[in-house]
């Protein structure tokens, strides 16, 4: 059970399946059932579903924390948002980040998984090393990366200089800052994707490779194209969507390293939401940004479940 999406799909199926007939003394047990689910159901309403409805409702108000009154203003927040240059910059930067980090982290994760799985030696050694960044507190490692990217004393520029290449002020230069954050994002996500791909690779039946070999697929590339890649389809979909959703949430590195600068070149949606909502306390406006963010994340999820449904046909 390495693939969360598959488990969920399986769960939906089993929830629809017919139940066994109810057993005797049901009423006392039913009473117990409600007692058992009440804390969870209450907290779900208070901390998840209520707030979700709340954020949508707030996005139609001009509520500001500390203001004496607030009123319904319909779509005004959205009008303001769509007229705001910073919002479009943040959206474009977020999409750029997603478009760079997702392929980077997915392809690197796949290649590393294939390399690890193609031999037998040192598998768990490599797996451990590549997974290490997933475990390490991102904020702490972001601070380390910042020092590595230091214009004068950093490792990266030091290596570039010793190779005779020009150095950059990576995080202070508006033409490189977002890409530096993308690099950190890929570095952090690769190990997680690698593990998901490894789990996918292990589950491919050996006979398929034998069959392909009999059919004349002798080269490594032919076996990859004919067996590995199609069999990894569902896992790949899952990895791409999960990477996409996580990249949409990029915040930690932005907040601690660049604060969205220089000149908004690293401003991203969640950072804009944080600034508006928790520094300026413009709750209604920040809620509208959150709704836009939610729409993107839910759209990605929808794409995943569509593709996962299609995937069933060839597994």
């Amino acid at each position, binding site marked *: 059970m390495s693939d969360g999406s598959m488990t969920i799909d399986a769960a939906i199926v089993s929830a629809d399946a017919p139940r066994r007939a109810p057993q005797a003394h049901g009423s006392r047990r039913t009473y*117990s059932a409600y007692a058992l*689910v009440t804390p969870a159901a209450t907290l779900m309403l208070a901390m998840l579903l209520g707030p979700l409805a709340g954020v949508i409702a707030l996005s139609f108000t001009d509520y500001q924390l500390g203001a004496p009154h607030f009123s319904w203003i319909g779509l005004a927040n959205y009008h303001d948002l769509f007229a705001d240059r910073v919002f479009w910059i943040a959206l474009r930067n977020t999409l750029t980040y997603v478009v760079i980090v997702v392929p980077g982290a997915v392809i690197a994760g796949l290649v*590393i998984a294939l390399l690890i799985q193609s031999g037998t030696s040192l598998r768990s050694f490599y797996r451990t090393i590549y997974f290490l*960044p997933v*475990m390490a*507190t991102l904020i702490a490692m972001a601070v*380390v990366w910042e020092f590595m990217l230091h214009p004068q004393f950093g490792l990266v520029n030091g290596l570039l200089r010793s190779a005779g290449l020009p150095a950059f002020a990576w995080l202070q230069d508006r033409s490189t800052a977002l890409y530096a954050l993308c690099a950190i994002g890929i570095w952090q996500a690769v190990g997680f994707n690698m593990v998901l791909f490894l789990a996918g690779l292990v589950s491919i039946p050996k006979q398929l490779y034998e069959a392909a070999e009999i059919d004349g697929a002798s080269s490594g590339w032919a076996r990859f194209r004919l067996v590995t890649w199609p069999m990894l389809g569902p896992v790949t979909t899952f990895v791409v969507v999960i990477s996409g959703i996580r990249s949409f949430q990029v915040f930690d590195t932005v907040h601690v390293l660049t604060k969205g600068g220089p000149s908004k070149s690293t401003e991203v949606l969640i950072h804009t939401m944080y600034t508006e*909502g928790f520094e300026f306390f413009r709750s209604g406006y920040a809620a509208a940004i959150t709704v836009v*963010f939610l729409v993107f994340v839910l759209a990605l999820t929808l794409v995943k479940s569509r593709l996962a449904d299609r995937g069933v046909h060839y597994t």
Partner: protein
Amino acid sequence: MSHSHPIPYRAILRHVLLIAGAAIMLAPFIWMISTASKPQTEVFSSELHLIPHHFALWENLREAFAKSNLLRFLINGVIVTVSIFVLQIMVALPAAYALAKLRFVGRETLFALVLFGILIPPQATAIPIFLLLHKLGLLDSYAALVLPFTISVFGIFLMRQFFKTVPDDLVDAARMDGISEFGIVWRVMLPAAIPAVTAFGIFSVVAHWNDYFWPLIVLNSEQLRTPPLAVAHFRNNEAGTSYGPLMAAAMVIISPLVIAFLFAQRRFIEGITLTGIK
């Protein structure tokens, strides 16, 4: 493959590529340890060297602990992550049992809501929960750090999946023995579900030990800071002057999880993957 190519050639290429990649993955960790071990004069030298000429790790660690109350922040991290995990289990386990083994009106709806809840990213609910905690006067407290995470729909989902595999006979036998439904959850199902609980525990602790977004929003007081906030504050106050102690602080903050991971990496990886939906 062994027919068409000599094996050593392929194996060597595999190791060369994997080691090159591993060097990139490890570079920040190595550079962190290297910088944390260097005195100020060596940190601010544009000449690259990995091994410090003068070993200053203890001085840097001492300075990090002196400039920032790191021990306190680590304890905060433990208090918050352990409280979250214990409460998550106390809330999720009974619900998961009921969803897996009991029949009641509204069960399908509740389960559908659990599945829906998994799709909601934590940032989406931040503003209303912040306003709620503000109304309740709970901002800037341990409660503010813990309360929003006491419900883990993913935990409910994972445990329910696991409980489905526990035989009904076991539950019926416990009922014959006169154990209440509540007792069954803790005395029959919990022991059976230890692997799933462990996997979920790893996921929960990793996620909340490393979380930056929520503590940043709800905390003001220095003495409540969690480890990630502590590093961020250290950097903001000291950046540009004391990279050695800053790297030492970063080392201290990541070490509890990283050391645990190095000791039990297989379990960690399985745990994270199993629960990696978030």
